[in-house]
Every structure is written in C-alpha cells, then in structure tokens.
C-alpha cells in the first residue's frame, strides 16, 4: 500500500489532513510520508501510534531531533493531520 498524499483519503477530514501535510510536513518527511530529511512516517511505530501520542509530537515537536513544534497550527488542523496519518491503521 502506498502512502501517497491524498490517496486513500476517505473523507473531508483526511483530505484536509493530506493538504496540511503537504504544506507543513512534506518538505522534511517527503511528499508520500516516506521520509526525506526527517524519518519515514510509514514505519510501524508511527502507523500504530495512538492519537494522543501523535498529538503530543505535533504540539511539542521533537526539539532534540530537529522537529519544530506545530503549536502555531490550530488544534483542529493538527487533528486533521493526525486523522490522515492514522487513516490506514487497522
């Protein structure tokens, strides 16, 4: 299963999340989330992460590893990104 942005987004929330991912995350994590300067988001650890775990990372960033905080995005937009990241979870 590919992780291409927008592909398999099943509802408006996931499509919005895909759009936000392209705008804010793809430059580091790759257009399809496969990794670039930053780690791949298709790995098992990310794909099975809980909503709360992903929310924590987006809000605080990972300062020691170069990921900035995305607290500047409204919480609703962070939730949309999380919905798209988790959309392929069982």
């Amino acid at each position, binding site marked *: 299963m590919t992780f291409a942005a927008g592909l398999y987004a099943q509802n*408006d*929330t996931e*499509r*919005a*999340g895909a*759009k*936000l991912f392209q*705008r804010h995350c793809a*430059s*580091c994590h790759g257009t399809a989330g496969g990794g670039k*300067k930053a780690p791949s988001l298709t790995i098992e650890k990310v794909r099975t992460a809980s909503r709360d775990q992903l929310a924590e990372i987006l*809000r*605080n*960033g990972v*300062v*020691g590893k*170069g*990921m*900035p*905080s995305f*607290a*500047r995005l*409204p*919480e*609703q*937009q962070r939730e*949309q990104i999380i919905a798209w990241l988790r959309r392929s979870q069982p």
Partner: protein
Amino acid sequence: MAGCIPQRLRSWTPRCAWLILAASLSSLRAGEGPYFVTYSHYMEEPGNLEVGFINSLGRPDQGNRFFNNLAELEYGVKTWWTSELYLHGQSTRHDSTVFTGFRFENRFRLLRTEHWINPVLYVEYENINGADRSLKEIVGSDGQDDLRTPNDEARRERKHEVEAKLILGSSFKGWTIAENFIAEKNLGHEPFEFGYAVAVGRPLALAARPDPCRFCRENFSVGLEAYGGLGTHEHFTPRGASHYLAPTVAWALPGGTTFRVSPGFGLTGSSLPFLLRFGVSYEISQFGQKIERMFR
C-alpha cells in the same frame, strides 16, 4: 511617460521607484503571526529562510511624510534558535533617501515543550543612525519629535544599541497571545530604556478545507497589537511616551508567500497620528540543506 505624471510628483518618481519596486517583491516577517512589532513564541523552522520587506508609511505633525523599508532575512538555526538580519532604509518627502543601518537579532526558546506560557529570550544588536524611521519597537520616550529632524542632520547621530526582550507566548483555542517586555541600551552612555508590545491573533478558520484554496478563511489571520514606551530606568513611566494600537491582517498563500498589513493609530500626543505598515514575505524551505549540497 513623464508627460503623464503631474509635475509635483515627478521629483518623487526616481527616489521612490526603487523603494516601491523593493516593496512589491516578495516576502517577510518574523515572529510567525500577523504582527509587525510583537513577537510570538513561535520560532522559524530549522533550515528555513524567510526573506521579506516590512514597510511603514507615516507623517509626523508639521513634518514630512516618510516611507521606511526594512529588508529581512530570518533563518531557523535550530528548533530553539532563530536568527534575523535587518537592513534599514527610508525616504522622506522633500528630503532624501538614506540607508540608516542594520540590526542582528537572535531568539532562543527556553523550554523544550509547549506550556501555558512559553518564554523566549531575544537579544539584538543594532547599528543605526538617527534618521531611522522603522519604529520597529517603541522604547523610552520615543516620539514623533524625533522624526522631524532632516535626514542630513539626523544621520550624523550614530546609535550602537543592544536590546533584550522577554517574549511570553500562549496558544489557547486557536488564539495566539503574546507579550513582550523590552529593555534597550544605547552603548554611548545613555540610560536603559524600556518598552512593551502585546498582541492577540487568530486565523479566521481553525479547521482547514479539504480542497486546495487561496482565498479561504484558513489562510487569513487577524490580530490586534498595542505597543509603546515605558520611559527609562531613571524615570520608569508610560507617560510622555508614544503608544499605538494597531489591528493586523495576514494572508498566507500555500506556496510560502505571506502578505501583511496593519494600520496603526497613535494614542498620545507624542505618537504619530497614523502609521501604515505593510509587508510581504516568502519562506524558502530547507534553505540550509540546499546550500550545504552546493558545497559538497
């Protein structure tokens, strides 16, 4: 072309043309928000370079109209460290166009995670002359009297100043709230001067639309900032200083360009009656990496 331009404007055209051209080129501003004076606690993304121009237009009472331009380069050094370089210039009607100096800023985020209140330490060195009209911050008893001096006389005054700000920022239900406390010292035996800037802002829509869009509400932010002087360490008071209230609007396009505008209203007799600020910025993602690759 010259025949189409009224005589009284022709003398302006050559002097202002480069400034207007510069203002029409892309990008800018620091602090990640719709504000021009207040800094929020948000840092520039590491490796990203934001390039832009901030412009201000004003006229002191019984003085000449001026147009000030700041060219800005803002770079995310680390997730917790952002650096900025500003180049200053201004053009005053019936006077001249002058380069007025530069400033170098650094902001350091002090806490690793988000909290109710997030502190950021700001330190700056500026080397400008007395003709500067940027009003980038208001400290001490800065007022419109300082803006009436002819450029030729004003530029002879050199100012080497260091400044520190305590930036406090919060995010709450889509609102960004920022407070800045400013302390500035002219290294030439002047007293410490103090000032403040506070702001609130919010996007027009908190959730994004599913389809790509340019004019949708999520791309617009509005805010309100207030800033002014607080006197010196010898006489700490807001009285006699200039104070401003300024609504702000920002429009962020998906490709990294942001437009900003803010009409500022002077609240005291020493304030400019009106100050219009506007600017454009463009963010270059992963600029640091691109430069690194060029030298490998």
